[in-house]
């Protein structure tokens, strides 16, 4: 058993390798110490070895928090498993901490539990003795297993400034503890430092081996996490990178954006390589201009993309209304963050569902989809571009910070011509066909593209008839409104009822959307193993709502959504069943199905983990 130790480690208990099916590892530090780089490399190496992996960044509140502060906890969590890993998991099994103070930040976030092993930089024992000692006592009292490690001292054997390479030493140590392939680690380092000098690379490789060897000699910690059978060709990236790849694979040529966390990195990725794939990123003067630019491009035949988050979404509202009204295909990626207002820019929330649906004055029906995995981040962009063109409509993709920054392997998609937009039609338009020749059944019409002879029309956001002529007649406005709305019903026709995860009837059905899928399904699996009659359902279309929900819900005694957004808690002061404000999907499902859908939600700004869901399941069924 692992026990709290002080350096030097007792060597005799070394090398009892324990096989586990999954482990949650964290590296926490002050920001700027390279913890994320080390952790990402660790994740990549693990993915390359065939393990399931999920990484999430631990982001401090401030761009430059004070060193050794609780609010400054920066770093990364890496969860590795023998099977596919779909979420960040519960409490960490092992933590590497570059100072003791940042651990408090994570403790406050309930990241650790009794038995969590903490590998702690011990240089502070001298520099900040009092704080350090107090903290150590605290940690022991909490039941953590703290192992003090002379990280800085060891690093100084290889480099003169330990700050610059400690992360690679830590990576080496972790590689040893988890029996990672050290040559894969070297490759990874080469990739990371490819733009730096050979000297830098060498230093870092030395540090890597230093950490590895030190651990081998000094640590009595060794875990085996056997990979699954070959899962085929895999790639590993975060959700924003997957989106960027999806944009290129969709054949989109224009991404018009204005920087905003956590959406910007989609455009960073694109800025790196889009031009080689026939596209360009346009950084506009603001979010309004960005979407206007995208709409201009779409109007001219090149269905474009804009990416944003909460505050930027607000600014795009007016143009979204225009795109709906004038039926301009458009892909809008909203990477949700904590709201309202500037809120929690780096934290996760699923709080934009109702704004996406109802943000615009008047009736503005549109398509809304939400990926639930990083893999879907890739594929949904392609889907969105196709839906946008087929239904001549803006399409929202609601992602969130958890997907955006979470890293996980998934099957490498085959890139082929089918996913690309067709070249723009420049043939002569049939004069007899109006520019809004709404199909009476589906509301769909084909659009003329500038350059098409005889297709000339003036697009307008005013009420208009089939010919795009401004028209204020009651029937015309009613008819065109019907056409736009009918398209949503037409999309619905193409959807199948979602498949329940677990039995199709039972005591409790959990309903989720977006990034929470992994955690919910893991919790449901655990609960079901212990005999609880719980199932789950995950929605990917939010507009239209997927078919058959009412029928599915009726087979369960209780239905409850799990969402990362705000809802009142019954029992809180003044909050009763009647005064309660519900979570967003729950509210929609209530109106849609008239089933008394309950909700479990919070605005902690943290991804949800399986154990929280599990606790809730037990509570609900008590």
């Amino acid at each position, binding site marked *: 058993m692992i026990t709290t130790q002080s350096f030097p480690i007792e060597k005799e208990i070394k090398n009892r390798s324990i096989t586990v099916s999954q482990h949650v590892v964290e590296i926490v530090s002050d920001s700027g110490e390279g913890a994320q780089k080390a952790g990402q490399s660790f994740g990549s190496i693990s993915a390359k070895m065939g393990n399931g992996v999920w990484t999430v960044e631990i982001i401090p509140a401030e761009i430059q928090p004070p060193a050794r502060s609780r609010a400054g906890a920066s770093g990364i969590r890496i969860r590795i498993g023998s099977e596919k890993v779909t979420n960040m998991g519960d409490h960490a099994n092992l933590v590497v901490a570059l100072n003791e103070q940042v651990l408090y930040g994570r403790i406050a976030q309930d990241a650790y539990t009794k038995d969590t092993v903490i590998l702690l930089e011990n240089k502070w024992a001298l520099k900040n003795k009092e704080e350090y000692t107090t903290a150590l006592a605290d940690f022991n009292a909490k039941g953590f297993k703290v192992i003090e490690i002379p990280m800085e001292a060891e690093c100084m054997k290889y480099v003169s400034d330990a700050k610059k390479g400690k992360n690679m030493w830590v990576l080496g140590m972790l590689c040893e503890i988890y029996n990672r392939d050290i040559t894969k680690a070297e490759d990874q380092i080469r990739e990371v430092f490819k733009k730096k000098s050979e000297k830098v690379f060498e230093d870092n490789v030395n540090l890597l081996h230093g950490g590895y060897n030190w651990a081998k000699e000094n640590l009595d910690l060794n875990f085996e996490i056997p990979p699954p059978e070959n899962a085929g060709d895999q790639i590993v990236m975060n959700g924003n990178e997957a989106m960027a790849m999806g944009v290129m694979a969709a054949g989109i040529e224009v991404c018009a954006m204005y920087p905003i966390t956590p959406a910007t990195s989609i455009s960073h990725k694109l800025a790196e390589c889009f031009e080689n794939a*026939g596209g360009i990123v346009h950084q506009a003067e603001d979010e309004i*201009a960005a979407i206007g630019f995208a709409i201009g491009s779409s109007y001219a035949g090149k269905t474009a993309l804009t990416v944003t988050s909460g505050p930027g979404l607000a600014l795009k509202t007016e143009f979204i209304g225009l795109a709906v009204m004038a039926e301009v295909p458009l892909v809008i990626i909203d990477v949700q963050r904590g709201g309202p207002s500037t809120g929690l820019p780096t934290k996760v929330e699923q709080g934009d569902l109702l704004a996406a649906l109802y943000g615009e004055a008047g009736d503005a029906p549109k398509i809304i989809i939400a990926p639930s995995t990083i893999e879907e981040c890739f594929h949904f962009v392609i889907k969105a571009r196709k839906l946008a063109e087929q239904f001549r409509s803006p399409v929202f993709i609601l992602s969130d910070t958890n997907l955006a920054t979470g890293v996980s392997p998934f099957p490498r998609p085959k890139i082929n011509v089918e996913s690309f937009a067709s070249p723009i039609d420049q043939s002569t338009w049939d004069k007899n066909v109006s520019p809004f020749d709404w199909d009476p059944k589906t509301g769909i019409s084909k659009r003329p593209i500038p*350059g098409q002879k005889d297709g000339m029309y003036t697009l307008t956001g005013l009420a208009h008839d089939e010919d795009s002529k401004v028209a204020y007649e009651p029937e015309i406005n009613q008819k065109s409104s019907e056409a736009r709305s009918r398209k949503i019903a037409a999309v619905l026709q193409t959807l199948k009822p979602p498949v329940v995860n677990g039995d199709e009837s039972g005591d409790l059905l959990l309903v989720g959307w977006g990034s929470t899928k992994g955690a919910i399904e893991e919790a449901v699996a655990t609960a079901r193993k212990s005999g609880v009659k719980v199932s789950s359902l995950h929605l990917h279309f939010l507009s239209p709502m997927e078919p058959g929900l009412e029928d599915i819900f009726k087979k369960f005694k209780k239905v409850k959504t799990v969402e990362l957004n705000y809802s009142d808690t019954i029992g809180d002061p003044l909050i009763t069943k009647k005064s309660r404000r519900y979570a967003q999907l729950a509210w929609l499902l209530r109106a849609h199905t008239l089933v008394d859908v309950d909700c479990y939600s919070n605005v902690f700004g943290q991804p949800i983990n399986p154990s929280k869901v599990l606790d809730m399941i037990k509570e609900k069924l008590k």
Partner: protein
Amino acid sequence: MLELTHDDLCNMSHGETAFSIDDYKKGVPRWCPGCGDNSVLNSVQKLCKDKQLVPEKTVFVSGIGCSSRFPHYMNTYGFHGLHGRAFPVAEGVKFRRPDLNVFVITGDGDCCSIGTAHWIHAIRYNMNMTVLLLDNSIYGLTKKQTSPTSATGTKSNTHPKGSVLPPINPIQTTLSVSNASFVAQTVDWKPAHVFETIKAAYEHPGFSFVRVIQRCPKFMGDLYETTIADQSALTLLTHENGIKLDEKAEKSFKNIIQHNPSDINKGREYAEMKDSIPIGLFYQNKNAPRYDEYGAHNIGMPVTERITAINKELDKYAV
């Protein structure tokens, strides 16, 4: 799979080429009698004919306002968008469609009030498009509110006792933006000058900004009546590199100044002229960098090449 390259798009044949002026007309303009917008429409239609612009290759983008109804009267493609937002839309149209002739029609409220940010940045992008600011110094469509170009003291429904701020000078402000490349002014009641100005603007390779001082008889009554009557109320800026009128047209001006449009400092000084309205070309730079050229640089890349690039990128993430 057919790919439309930059050249494909730009060289596409469009059948007959002899367009008459009627080919550019659509519907009956719904502006008030005497509205200066009518005169601009005529000049633009004449320009289209003179230049034999292919109607389906031509896009008029506007915002919201009386002036912004313009696209509805052109038998070309049109985009009558949102108040203040014509520029971003026009940029998006042009970015990947170098083959399209793009015109922007905007009003003083549309451009200089709600659209200010886009106006300033559009100047800087310097994309090849012709911009006509139809400036009647009032909000026409919404029935007489103060505009940023309303002269101090203008009585309107929002300032019944007279507006309190000095008007924005759209020429001066445009000149101040880095990468400004064509800045001109004309008045709707001098059709020959309007036409020559729009023509020069169209021919300019970049963002050509033309402020047309425009009469709104409905709400600004006799504001320009005195100006029209008084020959000296206008000052013609002219130059061999500027906007040239034929001799007869030029004779109708009493005040004529030679101004070399490459001299921005002088241009700025003329823009401040107080007792007379300067019309003509204040500044031109044909070599300013153009964002539309950047936008067009990788158009029409074959899908196979694009797939290769994507796969190369995916390789980096391979496990």
